[in-house]
């Protein structure tokens, strides 16, 4: 597959060339940066560290309708299937996260809503030239230029983006872009590789994760859970902004006679998440909930799907209002006896 490049001054033309693909790219929405449909090329923000909200919101929206119904009628109407899309500017950690979440949504029973969007969406990644201060992807099997889960990898050069198609979907997209792109030169490839290597060296946060999945069950009663939970407010931002967190609630919403059953992001950090109708709660305090969050990512998910459900994006560290730091928690797990 031929590597091509897109000059930055052609960016608006490129967006216009997308034709029948619905295009999503990072944009400022309110206070946060998130993937949203592109209507104005000028609003796309690629000079970002990473989006506040991970691209999981495109495949697994914060709230989505499972089906609609009319009260008093037994018919249910699921929404029409999704359209072809391109999600542009996904950081390699978030693309890996989607591959991890795919395992959950396709094990045993396929989730039709999620998998339909996955199948119809082309994922164009953006290699990290400048990782953030809390990035630790190298510790959990990632890389600032990882291609896992990407159909095309894009690297920002001085005046252009280098585009490397990786899959059939990526190749098809690259052909659709032919009018606005040009062939890459050898020098561009060298430059990109140099930038990738520089990025790897810039990642300052590291934690040794070997042995953590095996060790965690033995730390069930360890003090570290109480210590970590002591400052936790239970706000759930660590899970909402986590690219691998996939838990959801299902609720009915009714207006007049029109009803819909929808699913929405939920969080294991909320006490209602496991609260039984009887009032009994198997995870009654933040200690049990914190223990479950870490154990799920670093042990249960590994036991079930053979991969750590954390990609080291650093969002849970960056956005925690009380500075709970998962890298520090993991270090404590390593040190605990």
């Amino acid at each position, binding site marked *: 597959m031929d590597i091509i490049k897109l000059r930055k001054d052609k960016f608006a033309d490129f967006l216009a060339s997308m034709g029948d693909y619905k295009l999503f790219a990072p944009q400022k929405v309110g206070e946060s940066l998130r993937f949203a449909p592109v209507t104005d090329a000028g609003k796309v923000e690629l000079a970002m560290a990473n989006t506040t909200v991970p691209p999981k919101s495109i495949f697994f929206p914060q709230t989505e309708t*499972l*089906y609609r*119904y009319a*009260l008093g009628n*037994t018919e*249910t109407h*699921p929404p029409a299937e999704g359209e072809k899309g391109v999600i542009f500017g996904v950081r390699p950690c978030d693309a890996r996260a989607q591959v991890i979440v795919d395992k*959950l*949504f396709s*094990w*045993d*029973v*396929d*989730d*039709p*809503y999620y998998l339909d969007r996955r199948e119809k969406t082309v994922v164009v990644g953006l290699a990290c030239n400048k990782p953030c201060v809390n990035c630790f992807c190298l510790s959990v099997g990632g890389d600032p230029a990882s291609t896992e889960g990407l159909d095309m990898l894009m690297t920002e050069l001085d005046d252009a983006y280098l585009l490397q198609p990786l899959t059939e979907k990526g190749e098809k997209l690259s052909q659709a872009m032919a009018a606005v792109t040009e062939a890459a030169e050898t020098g561009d490839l060298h430059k990109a590789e140099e930038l990738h290597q520089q990025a790897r060296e810039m990642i300052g946060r590291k934690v040794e994760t070997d042995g953590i999945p095996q060790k965690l*069950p033995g730390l*069930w*009663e360890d003090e570290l859970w109480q210590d970590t939970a002591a400052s936790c407010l239970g706000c759930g931002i660590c899970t909402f902004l986590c690219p691998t967190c*996939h*838990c*959801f*609630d*299902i*609720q*009915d919403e*009714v207006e007049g006679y029109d*009803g819909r*059953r929808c*699913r929405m992001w*939920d969080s*294991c950090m909320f006490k209602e*998440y*496991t*609260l*039984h*109708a*009887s009032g*009994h709660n*198997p*995870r009654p305090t933040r200690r*049990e909930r914190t223990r*479950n969050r870490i*154990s*799920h990512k670093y*042990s*249960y*998910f590994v*036991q*079930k799907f053979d991969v750590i459900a954390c990609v080291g994006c650093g969002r849970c560290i960056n956005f925690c209002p009380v500075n709970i730091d998962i890298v520090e928690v993991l270090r404590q797990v390593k040190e605990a006896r």
Partner: protein
Amino acid sequence: MCNNANPYVPFTATIEDTWFETVGDRCVKTFKVTLDDAAARANWSHRPGQCAMVGLLGVGESMFCVSCSPTEGDFLRFSVMRMGKVTQALHEMEAGDKITVRGPYGNSFPLEEWKGKHILTIGGGIGQAPLRPIVEYVKAKMDQYAGLTMIYGARTSGDLCFKNEFAEISACGGLTCHLTIDLAEEGWDYNVGFVPSLLMDVNPSPENTIAITCGPPIMIRFVLENLKKLNFADAQIYTTLENRMKCGFGKCGRCNVGSFYVCKDGPVFSYATLKDIPEAFA
């Protein structure tokens, strides 16, 4: 799972009959229902121990065990305690009303594996609901099992579910039924005391026996202790777990105990599996 192509979309079912098992604030009402769609009805097959999502459009869905055995006929039964939003709305429903059902979900009691063995069920309160399909299944295939002993208790005689079935169970050859209530009542001719104590009085032999217990957590704790005293091995003891659930097929996340999803990997677990999971009895 024999559901629609979209696993979130439920089947419509019609309530054929309802009756109250118990009275009071937390009364239990049983619903006998039939799926409306002929193809869905033909494709549906559940095994004792499996669960289903029962709901009402506009209200919500909750997970219940199917409280009948497939040997009883081409219908489903759910015995629902009035507790929260969905169960209160369900309790308003009567024969002829429509509800939604999806499933069946989860694993089941390995009754095929248990052929030739003596089956001991130990239930408390609404915990008899998942055990009832075992009793009915064994009763229908009595020639394939060495026998069945049912131990069942509740706070008062009024809190015992499936009361009108006990006489028939006791009348079957090979089936024994031991009942208990917490405090003596006028006209009560059976045992008085807690289920774990009655278990010790009945003193079942662990020889070629499988014990299955369901009930309140505190009862299960003492039943497990007593089964160990009676020399039951971990692999001879089974229970069912329950947790809050939303999807029923291992996606929504909340029902996990350790790395197991109760909706998929459970609800039936052997004590040999559960004893190493610290969260199992939380």
